[in-house]
């Protein structure tokens, strides 16, 4: 079922989903780890709390963008759930980034911002 879906169906992503997926692209993260990563990368502007974070996670799990990981370190808090990008999720976040790049290029062409 899922493999027949095109990543484009899910675009555009919400900014916060884009952020979370980008963080997971770097490797497995648990809930609080995602929060800290997002916090660091937004210079403290976006602070996710557990309730909203896990509701986002549920939606992205349902969409097949992310999956819970099985492997974990032995000394870890066993209540944690680690997540990683599914291959479909990787395609979606890439598609979203390409879409954003188009927008950035448009802005550069229109002289809204300087060329990177």
């Amino acid at each position: 079922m899922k493999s027949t879906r095109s990543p484009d169906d899910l675009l555009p992503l919400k900014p916060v989903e884009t952020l979370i997926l980008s963080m997971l692209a770097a490797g497995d993260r648990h809930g609080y780890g995602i929060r800290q990563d997002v916090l660091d990368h937004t210079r403290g502007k976006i602070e996710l709390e557990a309730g909203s974070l896990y509701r986002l996670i549920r939606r992205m799990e349902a969409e097949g963008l992310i999956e819970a990981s099985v492997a974990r370190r032995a000394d870890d808090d066993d209540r944690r759930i680690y997540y990683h990008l599914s291959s479909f999720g990787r395609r979606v976040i890439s598609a979203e980034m390409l879409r954003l790049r188009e927008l950035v290029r448009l802005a550069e062409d229109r002289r809204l911002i300087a060329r990177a």
Partner: protein
Amino acid sequence: MTTRLPLAVRALMRLYPLEFRERYGRAMAAFYVERFADHRTFGARLRTWRRVLADLVIGVTLERLRGHRLDALQLASRTTPLSPEDQMSVIAQEIVHAARSLRKSLSFSAAAVLTLALGIGSTTAIFSVVESVLLAPLPFPHADRIVVPQTRNVTTGEMSWVSYADFMDWRDNKVFDQVAVYQRTEMDLTGSDEPVRVSAAAVSPQFFGALGSAPARGRVLQPTDFPVDAARAIVISDRLWRNQFGGRTDVVGLAVEVNGIKRPVVGVMPPNTRWPLEADLWVPLRFSTEQDPDLQRRDNLIFEAVARLAPGASLESTRARMALLAERAVAANPRIRKGVTTVPVPVMEWALGTTTPRALWILLGAVGLLLLIGCVNVANLQLARATARQRELAVRTALGASRLRLMRQMLIESAVLAGVGGALALALAYWMVKVIVTVAPRDVPRIDTATLNLPALGFALAISGAVALLFGLIPALHAGHADPHLALGDGGTRTSTGRRGTQIRRTLVAVELALSVILLVGAGLAIRSIAQLRRVDTGFDTRNLLTGSIALPSIRYGTRAKTVAFIHQLRDRLASQSGVEAVGISSASPLGGGGFYLGRSMVAEGRAVSNATEVPVNWNVATPGYFAALRAPILRGRDFTARDDSASTPVMIVNETFAKLMFPNDNALGKRAMSSRDEKVYREIVGIVRDVKYYGASDSPRALVWVPYAQNPWPFGIITLRTHGNPVNAIPLVRAELRAMDRGVALANVATMADAMSRSMAGDRLLAVLLAAFASLALVLAAVGIFGVLSYMIERRMHELGIRIALGAQRTDVVRLVVRETTPMVFAGLGIGLLASAGLTRFVRSMLYQVAPNDPLTFVGVAAVLALVAILAALVPTRRASRVDPITALRAD
């Protein structure tokens, strides 16, 4: 890994639907363990709590609604697939329908909307003030790294300012990233027609670095500004720049006359970036040498300090380093430093003090209770309405309306209520914040920055809106479950559902009453405290007194003789004016009227100087006639005279408390004592004056001394003028005399003593007024609750009452019935409320003046008021019950 999560978090997590909890509950718990593990400061912890709780409440609400929404959508699509446009128009129809139906039961709607508006509005307003005054970070980068170094008395815990020698220790040992000392002062902007007094600070080189503040224009002070021969550079605040320089863009580089000297403006600070909080002008603190013996003295605590923690250092590690240096200072100066250490105080803690946060938390608690009462009341109203509408809904169900449709209508009705209530609340909160900012005492820090806090409004609205929705759904749920035949056939209001509803509603009313009692007790205590304050004997006559301060620029009044001459001449000129009854000048004014005094230690003649013999005093300067102007009676001895000058015997006038502390067994008059650490001159006590309230009306007695200007000339004074008529009329006269003597001396801080008196009680009064207002609202809401329950009860038993009366029951029997219905509810509420109050009043203990927290008068009074209100609320329903006409009542079925 077994860290327990806070109860509130666990409780809220339990409210998530089971399916969500099973899937993510444990992961969320692990999240919270880390979330709560990581904060250093109280403010950070508070912020986390606020965020986590808000997130949980929103999450639970959305999750709980989610199921219904899905149901609703699926059902809708199965029965009638509506296009989005159609759906919109159905919803629009239902909003109109809801508004119409609410208008039909106008009193219900008005009660619900007002309840919501008052609860949400006051909570938002108080929280907005709390946010800006207590929670908002100071406008400096990483403000949590800024500390205020203080000197601490190990035995008493009393904090004081710091000595320059300690400051040099910290600076030279790199205890901090940056550390600075400063002295507050007032300066006159001169050169224009009317000189203007501004708050200023003379600061050491790392001052702006320690705050981490960058200028909006120009630059801050730099090392080259500090040598005594450098140009006297000044930095000004955004406020001063706008108010005094019209925001002119070329202000940097402009030469401005301050205290009679031209000084270049080198920079302007950004808006609201002020430290100390009221400063408008910063100048370099300059010394020809740091070796000055006065700067080397470890007990010369005349500087305030501010510092930024060193990179990697914590508050604790810094505390340890400061303690170590302080111990060395004790070892080197055991006589003066024994029992003294130095500590870093987080800047917010220092800026806010203890009274303001406590008062604000109390108010926040009070409005929290009010919001709770509001929610209970709305629930109660919704329940009442539910019962009243059971029949209508049953009819509609019988006619084929789906349960979904009914639920949607109820939801929309509740949403309209919450929406209107919320809009009113917004207006109310906006207005309340404005009022509070205007009437709050001026010494509440940052109160002027208070603005409406929208997240707080959202939070309050979400809670009470959720309550309204939840209870609004009940009739629809019943309508779905109830069998239409049953509902229509028999009086639906007499089914078991009705009875259970009544029980819930009685409990709700009892809860409301209990909460109101708590508020009433708080308000009662605050009002009693204010009444005590009003009765306070200030020690002098506060009527018809005008005060205003002057500061003499050192450039023209560089010598003692010139200063003394000016002060005495001004006094004499004012005394000769018509309309002036008496006049005196002093360095500080009572009732917290401002000015300057020195905290000194004095020892009586013939006693060795030691901690045991030293008496701490407030050292003031005064002219002859000052006490006569105050009408503070000189109990023994005499006033200063013109003959008490620099050539004559050193003298002083002391107050009763000083006499008692210094000479417990002797007559103090004629005895001598000296300021043991600095002046070291024995002064003869020539007069003993009655105690006056020094810092404010609630002040406790303290030892005060006054010495004559002629023997201790300060270039500063507060004029105290007693007039025959309204003191305000004398202001032009004082200004004119001053201008005639020196155009460059400003008259500032002009106020009447009655103002000072009421200002010194402003905080207590505001607390009392707000608490009383909230308590009255609570009482009204509770009364509405009682009224509602009784009316409903009587409505429900109309039939029964009719039969009873027809069978010969007396009116008094009916009244007895109502009393039986009301009493348990009222007593339960009252009892629980009084018990809870007794437990809670310890939080207000420190805010009370000469009132015990368990003040029996207050408790009895509250019980009486509540009983009275309960009787009033029960009156109308009772009258109606006793006038039931058996014929009508029986025909109704």
